[in-house]
């Protein structure tokens, strides 16, 4: 749980499931069968994210958004509460 949920822009596939926790797209190490470089038995998170995002009715283009550096201090907290807190501050 990163506390900064971006599932809508990753085809609803959690990027923190990537062993390198990549949030901006696949690395160059994806295997030719589409599986992960580090976990050969697991489908690459970003191969799944790309497939899913193209099938979504909304937010299809959001996978192109540049995601900022992750705030590691929010790890383990609720993204909903963090988001609402941000709105309150505004």
């Amino acid at each position, binding site marked *: 749980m990163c506390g900064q949920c971006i599932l809508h822009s990753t085809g609803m596939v959690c990027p923190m499931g990537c062993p390198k926790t990549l*949030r901006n*797209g*696949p690395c160059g190490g*994806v295997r030719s069968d589409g599986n992960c*470089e580090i976990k050969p038995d697991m489908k690459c998170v970003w191969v799944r994210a790309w497939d899913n995002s193209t099938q979504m009715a909304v937010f299809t283009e959001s996978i192109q958004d*540049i995601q900022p*550096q992750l705030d590691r201090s929010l790890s383990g907290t609720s993204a909903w509460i963090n988001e609402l807190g941000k709105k309150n501050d505004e």
Partner: protein
Amino acid sequence: MTNKPVSNLAQRLEKGLFTVTAEVTLPDSIEKEALVARAKMLEPYCDAINITDSTGAVPHFSNIAAASILIENDIEPIIQFSCRDRNRIAVQADVIGAHAMGVRNIFCVTGDGVQTGDHPEAKPVFDLDSVTLLTTINHLKTKGKFLSGRELDAKPDLYLGAAVNPFVPPFEQRALRLLKKQKAGASFFQSQYCFDIERFETFLDRLMELTKGSPPPLLVGVGPLRSARFARWLRENVPGVAVPDSIIEKIEKYPRKEQQKAGVEACIEIVETIKTLTGVAGIHVMAYNWESSVSEIIEATGLSKTARNI
């Protein structure tokens, strides 16, 4: 802000001149000489030399030290930074230190997982990914500030590059990913080994379409295969390197002793094709532990510095 190119590499690519870069294999040496000797074998043939960042998750000669040594020897480095071993604090500290040593070209990659190398017990960092590595360094470059907002005494002169791998899935996303990296601050690109021209052309067509015929400078990765056995090893052990059966079969037709020559010839053939493609800015030669083959490939394809600068 000045528009003067910050490096020889930047100048060539901005002018649209066909450019050759090469990767030097960093020796496991505690002195400078071995590195300098290898770099000097490449220097007559290329415009800048890539210094890897403990590639393959195997500790090698420090990239910043190696780049400084090249600069001392009047050779322009492209220093690679990966996300595997440095968090955002170390990245920013190292970038400004490298700048002070004269480094201008910085190439940002995700980096191989620690499982790939000879220290699989190590803790992988990946605080940043290749895109946020670019945005972090680009922030230093354009704002003259750390991510925290703390100011540097000046803005560093940097030319940022990024990697692209059109040869592994998700294929349809690779051109878009390149453009995302451009938006994040990358001015030039170097690709993973190209052994599959058809796959590359499909990628390039898509990139040309997305950029309306004006892609950012892209150097295509090439390299000789020493033997059919080496090709299989590369395919199985180096993440992200796709070696089609057809090229292995082509080399395997020859007896073991002649395979080295066949590998160089196959590479020359690929370079000849790449030279004819519109939208390609040059080549990036990776001849792992085989620097002597670079001269042969470059001479045979008419890409020596003298030939290119006529």
